[in-house]
C-alpha cells in the first residue's frame, strides 16, 4: 500500500516544461486596454468563482462551456490534466474572458474553451487568437485541434480563420470530429485576426496582477442580455 504522497505521484501526470505566454495588451474598440496574460495554478480558484454562476445559463451554450471549463480548470488546479495552460483577458484588472487548452503531443495543440464574461468588442475572438498565438508562435506547434460547441464559436473559429476539417481525428472534447488550425492558416490569418502589443508598460501590467471578478449585475446584463424597460 502506497502512502498518500506516493499514491498522489501515481495519480498526477508528469508535466512538460512549457514556455510561458508573454503578456500583451490589446486596445479594444471601446478604447479600453485589455491585458492578456497567463495565469498561475494558484489563481484558478478565482476563475472558478467567476465561472460558477454561468453553469445554468443556457443562452448561447454558456452552460456547457462553463461546465466544461470549470472541470478543466479544476483538473488543472488539482493536477489531473497534463500540460494545460490558461490565459485570461483583464480590463482594469476585471476578468473579461478566459481561454484554455493543452499541448497534446509535440507539435500538436488541443484547444479547449473560450468563455467571455463581458460580451462584444471581440473579447472572445481576441482571446482565442491569443490562444492560437501561444500554440503556434510560443509552443511552436504545427497545428491546433479545435471544435466549437456554439454557433458563435463556429462562426468565430471555423469560418473566420478558416479552419480545415480533420475528419479522421477525434477531438478530446468529444462531439464532432476535429477541425484544425495549421501554422500556415494561422500565419495567413494573423494580420487580420491577431492583435496586441508587447511589452506591456509595467504600470499597466500591475493593474492585471490581481484578478477582480465582474459584478453580478454586469454578468446579468452582459451575458443574459437583460437590459430594457417594460413598455
Amino acid at each position: 500500500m502506497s502512502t498518500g504522497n506516493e499514491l498522489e505521484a501515481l495519480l498526477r501526470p508528469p508535466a512538460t516544461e512549457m514556455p510561458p505566454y508573454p503578456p500583451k495588451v490589446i486596445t479594444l474598440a471601446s478604447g479600453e486596454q485589455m491585458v492578456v496574460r497567463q495565469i498561475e495554478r494558484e489563481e484558478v480558484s478565482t476563475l472558478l468563482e467567476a465561472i460558477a454562476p454561468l453553469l445554468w445559463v443556457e443562452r448561447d451554450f454558456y452552460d456547457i462551456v462553463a461546465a466544461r471549463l470549470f472541470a478543466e480548470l479544476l483538473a488543472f488546479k488539482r493536477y489531473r490534466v497534463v500540460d494545460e495552460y490558461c490565459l485570461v483577458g483583464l480590463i482594469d484588472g476585471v476578468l473579461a474572458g478566459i481561454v484554455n487548452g493543452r499541448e497534446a503531443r509535440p507539435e500538436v495543440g488541443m484547444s479547449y474553451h473560450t468563455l467571455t464574461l463581458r460580451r462584444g468588442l471581440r473579447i472572445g475572438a481576441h482571446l482565442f487568437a491569443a490562444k492560437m498565438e501561444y500554440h503556434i508562435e510560443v509552443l511552436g506547434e504545427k497545428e491546433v485541434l479545435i471544435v466549437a460547441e456554439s454557433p458563435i464559436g463556429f462562426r468565430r473559429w471555423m469560418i473566420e480563420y478558416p479552419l480545415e476539417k480533420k475528419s479522421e481525428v477525434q477531438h478530446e472534447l468529444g462531439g464532432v470530429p476535429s477541425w484544425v488550425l495549421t501554422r500556415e492558416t494561422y500565419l495567413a490569418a494573423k494580420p487580420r485576426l491577431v492583435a496586441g502589443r508587447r511589452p506591456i508598460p509595467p504600470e499597466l501590467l500591475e493593474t492585471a496582477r490581481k484578478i477582480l471578478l465582474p459584478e453580478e449585475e454586469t454578468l446579468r446584463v452582459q451575458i443574459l442580455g437583460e437590459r430594457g424597460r417594460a413598455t
Partner: protein
Amino acid sequence: MRQVAIVGCGMTKFGRSDVSLLELMCESSLGALRHADLGERWVDAVYVANMGAARLNKQTAIASALVDRLSLFPAMAESVENGPASGASAFKNGFLAVASGMANVVLVTGAEKMRAVNNLEATDFVASLTHPEAEYIYGVTLPSLAGMFTRLCMERFGVTAEHLAMVAIKNQENALKNPFAHIQQRITMEGILHAPEAVVNNPFVADPLRLYDCCPVSDGAASLVLCALDLAREFCPTPIRVAGIGQATDTHAVHERPDPTQLTAVHLAAEKAFSMSGLSPKDIDVVELHDAFTILEIAESEAAGFFPRGEGHVALEEGTTSLTGALPINPSGGLKGRGHPVGATGVAQLVELTWQLRGEADARQVKDAKSGFACNFGGFGNNVIATVLVREDS
C-alpha cells in the same frame, strides 16, 4: 382632411429576441395601447409593417394574426410591405385612414424578426430589394451599394473615415442612454480607427465601410396609436400632431441616377413633408434619420435640407448633430445603435420622436423639443418617406 395625432407609443427592446414575431408585435402594441390609455374608445384599424415574415419566419397575414391575438375584432387589418420603408408606409396608411374619417383610432405596428436566420441569409434577404436584373444577380448587397456611395462622397465632398466613425461613436453613445437600443457599447476613435488593433476590431465590410459603419441585424417591434386630433384632445394631455408626411421614389437601380450621390427621393419627400407642415428645416428641434450605414446620416441630413450639400460632415464635426448640439440627430442611437429590424424601423423613429416631443426620453431627452423630423429610407433611396411631428400642448 382631419388632423391626426399620435396618442401612444410602445417598443420592445431591439436586439436578439427569443420570442416569436407575433409576441414581439403584441408586446409593443400592448405598450402603445397602454400608453394611449384609450378608455372606452376602440381601435378601428390595424396596420402592420413588415418586410420579411414570409421568408424569415414562414408567416404571412400577420396583421390578421395580431388582431386575433389581441382580440381587437372587428378592426380592419392589413400588412404593409415596402422594404425598409415599411414602417413609415404603414404609418402613412394609418394617418390616411384617420385623416379621411374612415377610422378614429388606428394602431400601427412595425416588426421584424431577422435573427431567425444567419447573417448571410439576412444579408441576402435585404439584398432582395435591389434591382433583380441590374444589381442582385451581380452580387450587389446593401453594404456594397453603400460602400460605393461612400467612396463617391469621400472623393467629392471630403468625407473621411473619421467622419464616418464620428457618426458611429455619437449614435452608439446615444444608444447607451436608450434602454431599448440593440447596441449597448461605447466605442472610441482610438479603438475603431487609430489604434494598431483597429484593423482587427473594425475590419472592412465593404471598403471604405467598416464593421462599425454598418447597423446591426436586429429583432424588434415598435407601435403607435393614432387618433383624430379633435378626439385626442378629449383624453390625451400631450397629443403629437402629424404635421406633414411626404413620400417620393427614385430609380430602382442606383447607377441609373444622373448623380448617385444625390438622394433625390429624400429631398423630395422632405420637401413635401415640410410643405404640408408649413415648417422648414430650421424649425425642427430633433431628427431621426435612417443611418443603416454611417454615410447615410450625413447624406440624408443634407438631402432633407438641414445642411447645404456636401456640408453634413462639417456639421457633424462641429457637434451640431450631437445630443446637446443645435440639431440633435438620432438621439435614439439611430439604426446604428438602436438597431434595424427593417419593418419596425420607420415606426421606431416616430416612437422616438413622440417620446422626445412629450418629454419622455429620459437621459437622451433633447431640451425643449417641440418639433421633430424623421426619414425612413427604403431600398437604396428609391422609396423614401419623411414625417414631421409637432407637439400640441393642451
